[in-house]
């Protein structure tokens, strides 16, 4: 869940949300803005598709999250404007549901099931391993934008408990050692990719 401990002034001052600001390469900015524009175009399609029926805010937000990877304030305000919903209400809905994220997620999303079955079969230990390995808490993203750790509600595959979902792929009977391997694999992959460039 997103914490708004302070007024969030920093984030409001930026013009384009973080992932679209290319660090150290300002010449790429127009490109990124184009992507931004494209994403809003796509969002428009969904809004016109769903806004005909009442009560479709949640699905529009889900689609927006699919498009942007998260729900930037700009997208929330845009949806509010287009659907005639007060922006406070849109923001209220976004912060109510745990599947919505108002911050960009890492390349590798590690979702640990914290359903009862998983918990009593040792999910907490896995969480400790994750925290220890990545030095972040649940709901946070590593500074290198590589990993995001989240706890999920029961995904209903209790026979395989404990469960770790890596970018949507279910890993059953997960063990701490396995988690470390997955993390290393992603780190390596990222390394070799950056070497290629």
């Amino acid at each position: 869940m997103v914490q708004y401990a302070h007024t969030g002034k920093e984030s409001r001052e930026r013009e384009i949300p973080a992932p679209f600001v290319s660090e150290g390469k300002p010449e790429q900015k127009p490109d990124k803005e184009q992507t931004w524009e494209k994403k809003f175009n796509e969002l428009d399609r969904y809004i016109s598709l769903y806004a005909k029926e009442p009560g479709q805010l949640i699905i529009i937000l889900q689609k927006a999250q699919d498009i942007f990877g998260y729900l930037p304030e700009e997208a929330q305000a845009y949806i509010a404007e287009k659907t005639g919903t007060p922006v406070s209400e849109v923001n209220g809905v976004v912060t109510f549901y745990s599947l919505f994220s108002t911050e960009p997620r890492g390349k590798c999303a590690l979702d640990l099931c914290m359903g009862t079955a998983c918990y009593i079969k040792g999910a907490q230990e896995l969480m400790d391993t994750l925290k220890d390995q990545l030095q972040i808490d649940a709901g946070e993203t590593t500074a290198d934008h590589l990993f995001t750790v989240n706890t999920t509600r029961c995904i209903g595959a209790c026979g395989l408990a404990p469960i770790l979902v890596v970018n949507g792929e279910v890993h059953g009977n997960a063990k701490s050692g396995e988690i470390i391997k997955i993390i290393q694999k992603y780190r390596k992959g990222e390394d070799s990719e950056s070497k290629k460039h």
Partner: protein
Amino acid sequence: MKVKNTEDLREIKDKFFPLIKQRLGHRNGLGITQVLVCSGTACSSAESQDFRLELERELERRNLRDNVRIFKTGCFGFCQHGPIAMVHPGEVFYCQVKPDDVKELVETHFLSGRVVERLLYQNNGQRANNIEDIHFFQAQKRIVLRNCGVINPEDISEYIARDGYFALADIILNKKPSEIIDKIKKSGLRGRGGAGFPTGRKWEMTAAQDVKPKYVLCNADEGDPGAFMDRSILEGDPHSILEAMAVSGYCIGAAQGYIYIRAEYPIAVERLEIAIDQARGYGLLGKNLFGTSFDFDIGLRFGAGAFVCGEETALLQSVMGQRGEPRPRPPYPAQEGLWGKPTLISNVETYANIPVILREGWEWYSGHGTASSKGSKVFSLAGKINTTGLIEVPMGTTLRTIVFDIGGGIPGGKKFKAVQTGGPSGGCIPDKYLDLPIDYESLKEIGSMMGSGGMIVMDEENCMVDIARFYVEFTQDESCGRCTPCRVGTKRLLEVLKRITEGKGEMEDLELLEELAFDIRDASLCGLGQTAPNPVISTMRYFREEYIAHIRDKTCPAGVCKALLDYTVDEAKCAACGLCAKVCAAGAITGARGQPYRIDPEKCLKCAACVAKCPKNAITKGIRKEDVNIAETGIHTGTGGQEERAAL
């Protein structure tokens, strides 16, 4: 084609029934072999789809596609041993099949006609040739799940071949709403979502409202951790829900239905989308059903991760695209629901019972179960149990039958400690109630509840204080924040529990816990808050000695609560190298060369850095052992099981 009447349905049934008949055990000389591959979430997570695709490729390669046909099917319930593939004729039940097994399966079973023994379930050393031989299935009674594992959920024809939509046709063409409502009332069906409100009365209330339009809503927001009954029904038999909703729409006078489903259930969503499309294609949903003036259509609405949306008034808000916050009742949804209009809300399993009742008759249905709770109940069995899975038993079955007969008992020879029913709203039931026949009333009496049917088994290695903390943490996180007791109360409840599990509890905390728990229960606005303290209340009722051990003796008998564990050096193994003392950031380890090292439990931060460093594996964590004056506390706080403690 559009189905206009029963004859049209019969035509479809006749065409597809031979396939079904073979799956039901008839050797009807079809001349083909059918393979049903479980395609529920659990088996799919275990790569059942890879197996299916590999099997298709292999059959293609060997030119066997005409002789061996592959179907997706719904959950068999035997999730622990998935992926499951069932072969007909012969009802051969293969477990834990992998893509690598395909070749052997094809050669041995399909070409040579011999069963692949290796892939059969092992029952006490005996290979179970047939599903009937498996203990897990023997005490079950599959009423709601009758189509799961039998039909392909992605093919409406197979549902029709199982007599699906016949009841709908008959009702719309020949029956009055009041007749049907009467039947549902007489069947004794009660809501399977938790509280057990009589379904027929709910229909009657909604039907009696003189307001248009009305809505039918299906609650598929199965949020209880460890519960997956509704998901399995939707994945295995989606049409039964659609049919039931259409029937209820006809009875209460609604033309639009919604299914509110968790976005975390992608397979169920997909199956529902397919099912709705197919039903529309056959004219079983949409305008002018069976050529009458009755219209009924169903739309999907998605949850976005909020447990409280399982509460009916919160659900309404969420379906309308708002924050899922409950509101006070009255008015009830039957009076003012979606957009202020009368709305019938039932959960998935409740709807799944409707077609069966209508097909088999209320007399038949009410013949199952107990005096107050009729029919069967689907449970998802998980936790410390040998066979995790989905089961269906008649109401009134005992917990012992479920845990030990069906579930096969506790793994690793550990002792049973408790079974938790009803999810975060329920309670922990100790072993003394194992022989209690379970229904709505009996569970409530012992401080738990039916809930939607999640059952989590716990053994001696589960700490009940920690379990209570786990559940309160869950409800606290899922509280909508609207009313004071739930928003602040559960937070304070959690803080007290955390104190206790961290060894900082005081004896007065027990009183505080109890008082606060009861006040939250009595004062909360909705069901979530009202039941949130149940795990605390029930564990304090049955496992009070564990609380006291945590508070007074600062130990966790189950060895779970970290802060109460001690790291100790096994002096026999210690090589006195001093590495552990070097790595200890807290300076808790002392010793000298040549003498075993010691860890000061007061200073130890439980970081386990020393454990990792020790070359001799001489450092272990364990339950704190302290000299406790048994006479004073009257409670044994050692590591023994519960029975030992009871004996003292």
